């Protein structure tokens, strides 16, 4: 009895001190997106606070044996993926799980461990100006979201604007330069002629566009605040 009491006091003390030192009542979900010409890559770091860890663990350790098996880790990663959405130029893009890594239950219980996911998606061919919209709804009652974009490695890609809602659960990124159309699949002697014909067509469209009124593209979505990142 005495031993049990001492053990219980020790556990309470450990939780109290750990809680004081570390993330407590939030589930930090930090996403860093990188944009390439034909691919979007995202690194998602999920760090449960000590106080919310039991909620998070219940969603991972389905057989409640106190251990996160490989299958449970994979299933959880897929569940997180279902709570994410990505659109490119308004069209849904399928996110694929590239890898997942989880700290031990003990580390996460102490507020010291995280789950890291890497996901990617194909970018469909499109025009020069692109709009990416990323939304994270995972565990939104306890979540603290962060989402950022890396400066593109490809010098041809430029970020023109970023928008987020207050919680950072919704993120929009405008960029240019990623949608260069690939060259003709079989370039040959006609390529030069086709190029001239294309240029003539572009000039014609430009004249029509200048003289007519273009339909303005929606700049904002409800709840998102505009920020231009250079």
């Amino acid at each position, binding site marked *: 009895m005495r031993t049990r009491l001492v053990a219980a006091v020790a556990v309470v003390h450990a939780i109290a*001190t750990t*809680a004081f*030192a*570390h993330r407590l009542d939030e589930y930090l979900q930090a996403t860093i997106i990188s944009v390439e010409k034909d691919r979007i890559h995202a690194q998602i770091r999920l760090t449960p606070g000590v106080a919310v860890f039991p909620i998070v663990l219940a969603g991972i350790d389905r057989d409640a044996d106190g251990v996160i098996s490989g299958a449970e880790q994979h299933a959880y990663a897929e569940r997180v993926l279902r709570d994410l959405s990505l659109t490119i130029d308004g069209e849904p893009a399928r996110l694929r799980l590239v890898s997942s890594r989880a700290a031990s239950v003990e580390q996460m219980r102490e507020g010291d461990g995280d789950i890291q996911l890497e996901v990617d998606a194909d970018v469909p061919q499109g025009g020069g100006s692109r709009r990416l919209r990323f939304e994270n709804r995972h565990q939104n009652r306890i979540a603290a979201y*962060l989402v950022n974009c890396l*400066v593109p490695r490809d010098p041809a890609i430029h970020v023109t604007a970023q928008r987020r809602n207050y919680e950072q659960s919704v993120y929009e990124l405008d960029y240019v330069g990623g949608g260069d159309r690939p060259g003709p699949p079989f370039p040959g002697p006609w390529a030069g002629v086709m190029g001239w014909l294309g240029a003539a067509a572009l000039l014609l469209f430009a004249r029509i566009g200048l003289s007519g009124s273009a339909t303005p593209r929606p700049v904002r979505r409800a709840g998102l*605040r505009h920020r231009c990142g*250079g």
Partner: protein
Amino acid sequence: MRTWWTRTARGVGAVAVMWVSANAMAQTPTARIVSAANAFLSTLDQKQRASVLFAFDDEQQRALWSNLPVAMVRRGGLRVGELSPTQRSAALALVSSALSPRGFEKVQQIIEGDEVLKTNEGNNPMFGKDLYYISILGTPSATAAWMLQFGGHHLALNITIAGEQGILTPTLTGAQPALYTVKGKTVRPLGQESDRALALLSALDETQRRQAVLPYRVADLVLGPGQDGQTIQPEGLKASAMNDQQRAMLLDLISQWSGIVHESAAAARMAEIKAGLGETWFAWSGPTTAMPGRNITAYYRIQGPNLVIEYAPQRLGGDLSLHVHTMYRDPTNDYGRKVAAR
């Protein structure tokens, strides 16, 4: 006779002190640091030397730092609490030799704060001034690159010495409690980082503020431990849209981190930062006021071509003004990769 002896001894002592001082002044900063490193190493036995020394390219040891207490994230090297008084003095002399007086004072205040936290937490063994680690990566040298690491809870100094260059990135500073009293004196280890940022924000006009203040919550560091070499898309107000006085205030704020390292290295770093100042951004998220004498409860970030500074108050402990983590990086040269590669 005794009076004569005492006077002579004092005179010799004074001359010795002057000679040592003059000799030290004649040395370059790197020579002084190398000398302090070798003096520290000479106090260690074989086993301790094996524990404190790592290969310069030991990537695992390089990245083995955190804001968390050492009981939660293990550190490599020798724990200060394991050292004899002589070894401990030599270890701190080495750290001091690589820093400016202001930088070393800040480090001491962060450590002292952890001792206060230990006391406040009922003598919790997870905290305290004995739980800081020192390690050396490579061989202390006046020419070849090597690294000095020193840190523990709320502190991670990664100092690369490469010839006369001293690179302090990545470095993490933090404080909990961020305000405490020792012997009747109020201490705020990261008080300047808070006050000068708020002063800069207050110096902005309405249009500039609208650019600087982000309309969303930033809950934590974006580029904290484990995020080496990443450059995120900058946001906020560009320094090129500031006036001269505001830019001077921004530089003054940056110097709270760049000035931790010894003066000549800090001067070189500041020249580099000034060269990229036009492309440097200042972003703020959270309350735009603070209680007098207390730290801000807002997050801010300063980002330039070779600079990232983040200041992130922490909810843990209840009062955001009493717990803060900060990060200082050069994504192009963390751990001195740029100079070490030459």
